[in-house]
C-alpha cells in the first residue's frame, strides 16, 4: 500500500464489527413485521417516548434557536475536524491522559484489548457505547479471553439474551417485561428464582448482579457523547449510574470515540446538553452526566486512554452532501418518529445504527454497495428531519444515497424508458393510452406482474379513466 493510498478517505473494513446486515432490508423487515409481540412492544415504546419528548421540547421557548446552533456547531466541527482533534489530543495529554488513534475497527479493537491486557484483568466493565458496538469490541474481547460485562440495563438484557440491540437509546426496546424476566431467570447467575416481572424488581436484580462487578473490576470501557477540544473534557450522559460507576471506580478507563464527537468549545455544551436529553429520553435532563478531563489525582481512574476512531468517517466526510450524517448526536429521535422503524424495529437494518439515521450513516460508513437496500428503507415522509435536534436533512440524504446505490438492471431499463417517454410528449400520450387500455392491469383488482406485484398484493388498482386529462382538455 502506498502512503498516498493510506491517506485517502476509506470506508469501514469488512469482516469486523456490526455495520453490515446479513440480508437486505425488505427481507429482514418482512420477518419483523410478522412478529406481533415485537410490533406491540415497538408501538408502545415509540409512542411513549414521542409523547414524553414532545412535552419537554414544548417547554423550551428557544428550541429552534438551539437546533440551529447545534447544526451550525456540528458543521463547524466537520470543517475544522483535523485541527480540533489535534487540539483535543494536546489538551487530554496535558491533563494526564493518553490519546490513541485507530484508523479502523481492527486497529481500535487491538489497541483496547492490549490496554486491558496491560492491566492484568480478564474482565472489563462497559458503559453502553455505539462506537464499541460498531467495531465489535465485545467479540474482540471474547477472542482474547477477556469477559466484557455490559452494565447498562438494556445492554445487559441484550447480552444475557444472546441478542442484538435494536434501538440506539433503548437497545432492548423489542423486549417486554415478561421476556426480560425469562432472560434473567435463564442467564443471570445468582438470580432470585422468585423474580417477578415488575420493572422495579427487574432493575433491582440487575443492581445486585452488577454491584460486585463494579467494585472489583479494575478497568472500564466507555464511549463519549462529547469531547471538548478547547479543554480536553469528555462527557458521558446516562441515567442509571452504571456510567458513573465505570467512569469512577476502576483504576483504568478507556474511552472509544468516533472522531466526529469532538466539539470546539466548552460553551458548545450549552446547546447539546439541552438538545440531547429532551430529544432522546424526553427528559429535561438525564439523571447523570459525568465530565472529566484527563486524570484527577485522588479522584477516579488514575490511568485514562482516549481512542479516536475513524472507521469510515473520513469517507463520509468526503461527501459534501453526505457528511451531515456526522452531525448525529445519537439521540434516536428519528427512530422514534419513523413509521418504518416503528413497524420493523432495529434488527431489520442489520447495522448497529438503525432507523433513519442508520439508513444514511451505515451505507456511507461501509460504502453504499454494502448496504444498498438501506437508503430505500424509507417512505421519505420527512418526520425524521423535523425531529432531528441538529437538523440533519435525512430525506435529502436518502435521495442522495439512492443515486449512488447500485440499481437492479431491470429497473434501470424501465427508468430509462420512462424518462425517454416523458421527455417526448407524443410517446408519453401513447403510454397513457396504453394504461387506459388496461394492457398492464387487466380486470379491476387483478395483480400486476413482478416487481409491482407487491403493491397489488394488498391494494386494488384504480379503474383507468375513460380519457386522460389532456384528452379531456383537447375536447373542451
Amino acid at each position: 500500500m502506498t502512503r498516498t493510498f493510506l491517506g485517502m478517505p476509506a470506508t469501514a473494513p469488512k469482516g469486523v464489527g456490526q455495520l453490515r446486515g446479513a440480508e437486505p432490508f425488505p427481507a429482514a423487515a418482512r420477518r419483523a413485521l410478522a412478529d406481533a409481540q415485537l410490533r406491540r412492544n415497538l408501538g408502545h415504546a415509540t409512542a411513549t417516548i414521542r409523547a414524553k419528548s414532545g412535552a419537554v421540547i414544548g417547554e423550551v421557548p428557544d428550541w429552534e434557536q438551539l437546533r440551529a446552533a447545534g447544526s451550525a456547531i456540528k458543521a463547524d466541527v466537520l470543517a475544522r475536524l483535523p485541527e480540533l482533534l489535534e487540539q483535543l489530543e494536546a489538551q487530554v495529554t496535558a491533563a494526564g491522559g493518553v490519546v490513541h488513534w485507530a484508523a479502523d475497527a481492527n486497529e481500535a479493537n487491538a489497541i483496547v484489548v492490549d490496554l486491558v491486557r496491560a492491566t492484568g484483568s480478564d474482565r472489563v466493565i462497559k458503559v453502553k457505547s455505539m462506537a464499541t458496538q460498531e467495531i465489535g469490541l465485545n467479540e474482540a474481547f471474547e477472542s482474547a479471553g477477556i469477559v466484557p460485562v455490559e452494565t447498562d440495563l438494556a445492554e445487559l438484557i441484550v447480552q444475557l439474551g444472546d441478542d442484538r440491540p435494536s434501538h440506539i437509546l433503548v437497545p432492548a426496546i423489542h423486549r417486554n417485561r415478561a421476556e426480560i424476566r425469562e432472560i434473567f431467570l435463564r442467564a443471570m447467575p445468582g438470580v432470585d428464582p422468585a423474580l417477578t416481572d415488575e420493572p422495579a424488581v427487574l432493575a433491582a436484580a440487575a443492581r445486585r448482579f452488577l454491584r460486585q462487578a463494579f467494585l472489583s473490576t479494575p478497568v472500564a470501557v466507555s464511549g463519549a457523547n462529547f469531547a471538548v477540544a478547547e479543554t480536553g473534557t469528555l462527557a458521558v450522559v446516562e441515567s442509571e449510574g452504571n456510567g458513573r460507576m465505570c467512569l469512577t471506580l476502576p483504576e483504568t478507563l478507556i474511552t472509544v470515540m468516533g472522531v466526529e464527537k469532538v466539539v470546539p468549545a466548552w460553551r458548545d455544551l450549552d446547546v447539546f446538553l439541552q438538545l440531547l436529553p429532551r430529544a432522546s429520553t424526553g427528559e429535561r435532563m438525564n439523571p447523570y452526566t459525568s465530565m472529566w478531563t484527563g486524570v484527577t489525582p485522588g479522584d477516579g481512574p488514575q490511568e485514562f486512554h482516549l481512542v479516536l476512531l475513524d472507521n469510515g468517517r473520513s469517507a463520509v466526510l468526503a461527501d459534501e452532501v453526505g457528511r451531515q450524517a456526522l452531525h448525529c448526536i445519537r439521540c434516536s429521535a428519528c427512530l422514534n418518529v419513523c413509521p418504518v422503524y416503528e413497524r420493523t424495529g432495529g434488527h431489520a437494518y442489520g447495522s448497529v445504527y438503525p432507523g433513519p439515521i442508520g439508513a444514511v450513516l451505515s451505507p456511507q460508513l461501509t460504502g453504499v454497495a454494502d448496504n444498498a437496500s438501506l437508503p430505500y428503507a424509507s417512505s421519505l415522509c420527512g418526520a425524521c428531519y423535523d425531529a432531528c435536534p441538529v437538523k440533519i436533512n435525512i430525506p435529502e440524504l436518502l435521495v442522495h444515497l439512492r443515486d449512488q446505490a447500485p440499481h437492479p438492471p431491470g429497473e434501470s431499463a424501465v427508468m430509462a424508458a420512462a424518462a425517454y417517454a416523458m421527455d417526448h410528449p407524443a410517446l408519453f400520450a401513447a403510454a397513457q393510452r396504453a394504461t387506459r387500455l388496461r394492457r398492464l392491469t387487466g380486470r379491476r383488482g387483478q395483480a400486476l406482474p413482478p416487481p409491482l406485484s407487491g403493491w397489488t398484493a394488498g391494494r386494488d388498482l384504480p379503474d383507468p379513466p375513460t380519457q386522460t386529462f389532456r384528452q379531456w382538455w383537447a375536447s373542451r
Partner: protein
Amino acid sequence: MTAREVILARLRAALDTAAPLPVEVPRDYRRDGPADLDRLVDRLTDYRAHVHQVAEAEVADTIAGIVPAAASIVVPPGLPPAWLPPTVTVLPDDDLDNARIAAADAVVTAAAVAIADTGTVVLDGSSDQGRRVLSLLPDLHICVVHTAQVVATVPAALARLTPRRPLTWISGPSATSDIELTRVEGVHGPRTLHVILLP
C-alpha cells in the same frame, strides 16, 4: 505512516475534495434568566427528588429527620460539621475504601451549582463535595444547595463551572426506562436523593 498521520491525512483529503464554507454559529438561544427557586423545587420534585427548604441552622435537624438514628454517613473533608446531626456515625473521607463507602447508609455533600430549568445539581469535587465515588455508592444522597448557587439555565451553569474539575450533573435519583419505557427510580446510583435548599 502512524495511524494518527493516516487519519489526519484522510480527514484533510476529505475536506479538500469539497471544502466546506466557514460556519458562523448563531448564539441567539437563551443564556440566562431569573433563577426561579419555585421552578427548581418543582423540577426536582418532578424527577422524584425530595426537597427541603430550611434555614442553615436547621440542616442538622433536617438530616436527622431523613436518616435513621445512628446511621453511618460518609462526609467529604470540607463539609461544614454543623450540618451533621449528633446522632449519626460520621465517616470522614480520609481515603475510605469503596467497600466502606458502599456500606454506608448515606452521604452528605454540598454542591457547586443548581439549575432551575432542569432540576439539576452539579458537584465539582470541591472539598465540601469530595471525590466522585462518595456520592455514588451510598444508597441515599443528601445534597445541600445555597440559593446563591441556583441559576436558571444550562448555559448559565456551564459559565459558572470549571471544565477541568471532575463534574457530576445529577437530576433526580438514578433511573432507568429500559423496560417498556416505564421509569424506575434507583438502579446503580443512589436510589434516593434529598436536596436541602438553603436561603
